[in-house]
């Protein structure tokens, strides 16, 4: 019998600012099954529910947590921005 997800994909994950310090993660690669969302990436990374003000980007564009991810994507998590 074939496994339900015979292939895995790799996503490159980055964390910034206070989140980087809290998780102790700057950049990491995560392997996961193919039908993955940003929320799944967060869960695999942190093993905790996302903070209410958490923001995320997929390939340098803001996305929602239910956005699908693809093999090789760069997924970033970060707190509210404070530039300018």
């Amino acid at each position: 019998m074939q496994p339900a997800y015979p292939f895995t994909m790799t996503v490159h994950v980055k964390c910034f600012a206070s989140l980087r310090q809290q998780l102790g993660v700057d950049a990491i690669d995560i392997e996961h099954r193919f039908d993955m969302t940003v929320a799944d990436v967060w869960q695999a990374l942190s093993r905790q529910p996302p903070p209410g003000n958490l923001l995320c980007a997929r390939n340098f564009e803001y996305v929602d947590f239910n956005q699908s991810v693809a093999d090789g994507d760069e997924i970033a998590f970060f707190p509210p921005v404070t530039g300018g």
Partner: protein
Amino acid sequence: MRVEIRPQPFAPWQEVGDYQERHLARGAFGASAVFVGSMRDFNRGEPVRNMALEHYAGMTERQLTQLTEEAVQRHDLLDALLLHRIGNLRPNDPIVLVATWSAHRAEAFTACREIMEALKTRATFWKKETLTDGERWVDGNTPG
């Protein structure tokens, strides 16, 4: 149009003057509006000694370029300049410079402010302040 992230301190008024001299046609623009945000030595009730400005290399540059291009097109600007500092800042250091040039004043004014608001809302920068006793991440921006 020029958009740059600067790891070193810059002299904002000289930057505007130099850019205008080199890139704007003499007699073509009737209006220029400039905003400069600088580091204060006091924030939310406490003295601030230093500030570290972090960004998301790759994403931030794209955002700044996109939001400046959008403003240039929306307001028919003749030109625009955006500089944003990263790294370790001291009080009085310029953080951000936005300059816009247009034929008439309404466009330059409106575009300059819109670029700043878009940058404050969307651009991936984060500030960490060094206080007299410890550090803190700034948790949000002052409303525009």
